[in-house]
């Protein structure tokens, strides 16, 4: 196996042999592997985990009145909702991702007889994992916005939701950006635990390559390290660019 072949395998994973194709699911859900699978799972965990995080963050009771879902005394009691959201967030935060992954690949079938493609379960478990941590970041970002601005907005006659969408979230977004990037890199690195359930992402692929290429172990480790590192580096360049562009736009206005 040449250097280029090894790199290609790590980026795309091993091709799926026909014996491993489960004809009940679409092929594209089974074919992805290697680095791209790790990135796909990370991406989808933000797509599904982001909204979940926002809902959780908004549900949680905040001394400064951040909670916008449910009002005291009404049917949707704010405190009860906050209570539940807190339980979900803190409960999931206290479970190691490895255990979450092992549970996700075991319980749905055992309890409900639900057999799902591996990538679907991986995305589900990482969406929850990501959403729970992201909700903490969003909550902090929202409370970083000065109350004076919100009061001003309210005085202008904006509704609670308008204050949130037009004023609060856009300002909070910039404050949250570095933390969200850190979270993205953490989630990307954590996809490596999927190797224990044989999901063919980067780490599992590396384990497979190692078996057929024991002599090139050092080179393999170096390549894997470089791939993980370059993704993290690319992410951080992207964020600093984004931040600079944002700053420019604000200054221009």
């Amino acid at each position: 196996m040449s250097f280029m072949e090894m790199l290609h395998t790590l980026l795309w994973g091993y091709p799926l042999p026909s014996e491993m194709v489960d004809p009940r699911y679409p092929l594209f859900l089974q074919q992805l592997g290697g680095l791209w699978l790790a990135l796909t799972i990370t991406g989808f965990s933000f797509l599904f985990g982001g909204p979940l995080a926002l809902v959780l963050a908004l549900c949680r009771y905040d001394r400064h009145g951040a909670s916008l879902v449910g009002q005291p005394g009404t049917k949707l009691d704010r405190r009860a909702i906050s209570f539940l959201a807190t339980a979900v967030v803190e409960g999931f935060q206290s479970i190691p991702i490895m255990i979450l992954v092992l549970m996700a690949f075991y319980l749905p079938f055992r309890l409900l007889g639900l057999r799902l493609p591996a990538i679907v379960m991986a995305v589900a478990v990482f969406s929850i994992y990501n959403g729970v941590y992201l909700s903490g970041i969003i909550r902090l970002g929202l409370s970083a916005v000065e109350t004076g601005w919100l009061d001003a907005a309210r005085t202008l006659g904006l509704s609670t939701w308008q204050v949130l969408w037009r004023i609060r979230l856009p300002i909070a977004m910039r404050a949250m950006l570095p933390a969200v990037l850190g979270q993205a890199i953490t989630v990307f690195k954590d996809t490596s635990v999927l190797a224990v359930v044989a999901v063919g992402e980067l780490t599992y692929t590396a384990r497979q390559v190692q078996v057929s290429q024991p002599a090139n172990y050092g080179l393999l480790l170096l390549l894997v390290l470089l791939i993980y590192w370059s993704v993290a580096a690319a992410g951080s360049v992207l964020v600093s660019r984004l931040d600079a562009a944002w700053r420019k736009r604000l200054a221009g206005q």
Partner: protein
Amino acid sequence: MRWLAVALIFGATGIFVGIKIDSFRKGPGAGAGGADQRSTLDIVKEEGRVIIGIGQEAAPFGYRDKDELVGFDADIARAVASRLESYVGRKIEVVFRPVTDETRISWVQSGEVHLSLCHTNITRKRLANIDFTVPYGWDGKGVLYDLRKGRRNLDDFAGKVIGIKRSSSSEGEIKACFAARGWAMPELRQFDSHIAGIQAVVDGQIDGFTDDDSIIICTAMKAGHKVGPGGILAVTGTPYSPAYFGIGVRKNDSAWRDVLNYCLHDLWSSGEYKKIHAKWFGPDSICPMPLEDHQMEPFVKG
């Protein structure tokens, strides 16, 4: 207060899940559960497909050679699957599902895979959770040595320097073996990888290196050192820590286990087993391990 909430919600979920799993533990036919309680044989018959858990991370048992899934386990799995149809009585579609050391037992328990071949040793601890078919393969620990200095047996290594892989189970096992036989204790030297220890044997720094036969032979062969007759390395004959591999099946599901046993019997009586064994463990294979006096005679008469 918040911790009370966490404890309440997770405690309730835990108890619910626990009860469900407990009802399942008792095996097919006991209590209600989400997963199918019937015999796996009935499930396979009804669905018309069998899901085989297979390891992909250990040569020569199951690994990737370019785009193909190859290995001894993989070939046995294919051969067993091809014979299943005659016992199940309908066309069966075969789906391989990769398993790892962490999931090869639990996915059999849950029914996620109908059978699993992942060079799994039959141990009492594992028998508490799943059942195994008759053994379809074996391994043991021997000592790899330099054949140029003559043929040797295990007792020739009394008081000699033997390399082991760091934190492997070989340390305790070889000590126990030598102590039980009253031989002089060998001096053990630790290595970080198998290939480093094997290289040390070739260079004459140590007298021998020990671990599972299949691992040391396969690693040495892949590194370009021929093991066995015609090579410069060899492994001592009788293993000091023998182990048998079985196909993992769900506990107390004898209808299904019988069918798989019959398939293995058929492989043995038709000679197909020996062909597969020769392909992976024959003299010219990547892991030369002779059949020696191992027997897999099926009890099919009468």
